[in-house]
Structures are given as C-alpha cells and as structure tokens.
C-alpha cells in the first residue's frame, strides 16, 4: 500500500458487473452510503439490469447519487472527459476482470477490484500483473465478508 492509497479520494466510481450474483447489489448500495458519509461524490456505472436492481432498491436515491450507463462511463473515462480518484470494480466473472484491467488503464486513480462469488481464487489469478488492488471475499449471498474487507480500505482514509 502506498501513501497515495491512504489518501481519501476526491471522487469515486463503482463499476457494476453482471448482476447475477446477489452480493453485488448489496455491496454497491452499502459502498454508496459509505462514500456519501465521507462526502465523496460517487458515480455508479452499470448495465441496465444492474442499475435497475439498485434503483428499485433505492427509489428515492437515499444512497445513489449519480448513476450512468456502463458504456457511457467507459467512453468518458477513455476520452478523458471524466476522471475518478478511486474506481471500485465489482468482479465475479472473467468479463469483469477485463473491465477491472480496463479501469486500471483508463481511470487515472486507484482501481480496486472487489472479488466475490465462488471462484475468487481463479479471478485473483486472472488479475495477476494487472496492477489494480484486489479486495477478495469468497461467497455469493453473504455480503458481510466483502463489506469487512472494503471497510478496512475505507478506514485507512479516515485515519
């Protein structure tokens, strides 16, 4: 961990993967709330289905602030019209590994790959050499182990 990682980011992105695994929606909403409490503006990017799961769960946007289409977010970051200090990429399949690697390349700040699901060891191996920070907790239905691991990172910002 470097000193830069310990600094509280000025803004953050949560990039949603395929919403097939229940942990994703829960962790994303919790992370939105945790970032809001720290006054860190947070954009959530995802597919229509992944976004709908969040927006139906938080209809009055108590936790969600800015929500955008996944492809639009990628285009803005790749084109340099948007930058983020911290990108949290939710990863449970091989496609999300590619998105995490892409974020590491184009987002500009620190990319955190949040690994969950039943194949975290394989996903961790897939991410070797990519350079993003990996936060992993095996499991598909219980969000608490991953929440605890992410909380440890957030705590370093509060120190």
């Amino acid at each position, binding site marked *: 961990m470097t000193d830069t990682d310990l600094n509280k980011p000025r803004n953050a992105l949560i990039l949603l993967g395929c919403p097939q695994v229940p942990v994703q929606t829960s962790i994303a909403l919790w992370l939105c709330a945790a970032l809001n409490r720290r006054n860190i503006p947070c954009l959530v990017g995802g*597919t229509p289905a992944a976004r709908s799961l969040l927006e139906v769960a938080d209809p009055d946007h108590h936790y969600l602030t800015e929500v955008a289409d996944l492809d639009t977010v990628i285009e803005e970051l*790749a084109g340099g019209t948007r930058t983020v200090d911290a990108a949290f990429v939710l990863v449970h399949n091989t*496609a999300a590994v*590619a*998105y995490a*690697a*892409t974020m590491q*390349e184009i987002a500009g700040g620190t990319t955190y790959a949040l690994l969950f699901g039943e194949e975290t060891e394989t996903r961790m191996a897939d991410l070797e050499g990519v350079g993003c920070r990996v936060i992993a907790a095996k499991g598909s239905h219980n969000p608490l182990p991953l929440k605890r691991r992410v909380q440890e990172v957030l705590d370093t910002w509060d120190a």
Partner: protein
Amino acid sequence: MGCIEKLDYEVIIRHASFPEAAKYIRAHCAEAYEVRPGFRIFDKAIIGIPPVLIGLDGDVVTFPFTKPCHGTFLLRVSDGAEAAMIRSKAKRVKP
C-alpha cells in the same frame, strides 16, 4: 460497445479468454497489432486485459469484444477504414 452489435460480424470464438484470443490472432491473422484497453475501435473503447491483440487480414479486422454478462467474443468484421486506422495507430507485433 452497442454499435458493434449492429455490425456485420462473424463470431470466431465464444467465451474466449484474452490469452486464447491472442493465441488465435497470432496463429491465424496475417498481421497482429497490440493496443491498450481504451483504444477506440469501431468508435468504442476496447475492453480487455493488456496488451490487447487485434488481427488484420487485408480489410478484415479480428478483435475481442467483451460484454459484462456474456464474456468475451472474438469477432471478425470487414472494414477497410478501420483496418487502415489500426495500421496507422497501433503497435505492429506480427509479422
């Protein structure tokens, strides 16, 4: 990469890993080029684990296309302008 789905493409490999896609391109395409994730192809930023390989055979472009719920597909599309753009901007690694 919504607009890519509107192209007249051929699927070469479904659910490909990036090493598998790169291996295919090196073995079967006349020319191979390396790009970084975010490189624009068919007006969209490419998603992938770097370095991402793109293959060319004349006007035919072979490239990986990733969707969050469906994984990575190795696609082939004939487009002379896009092939010329890749030749001018990307790093040639084969031959």
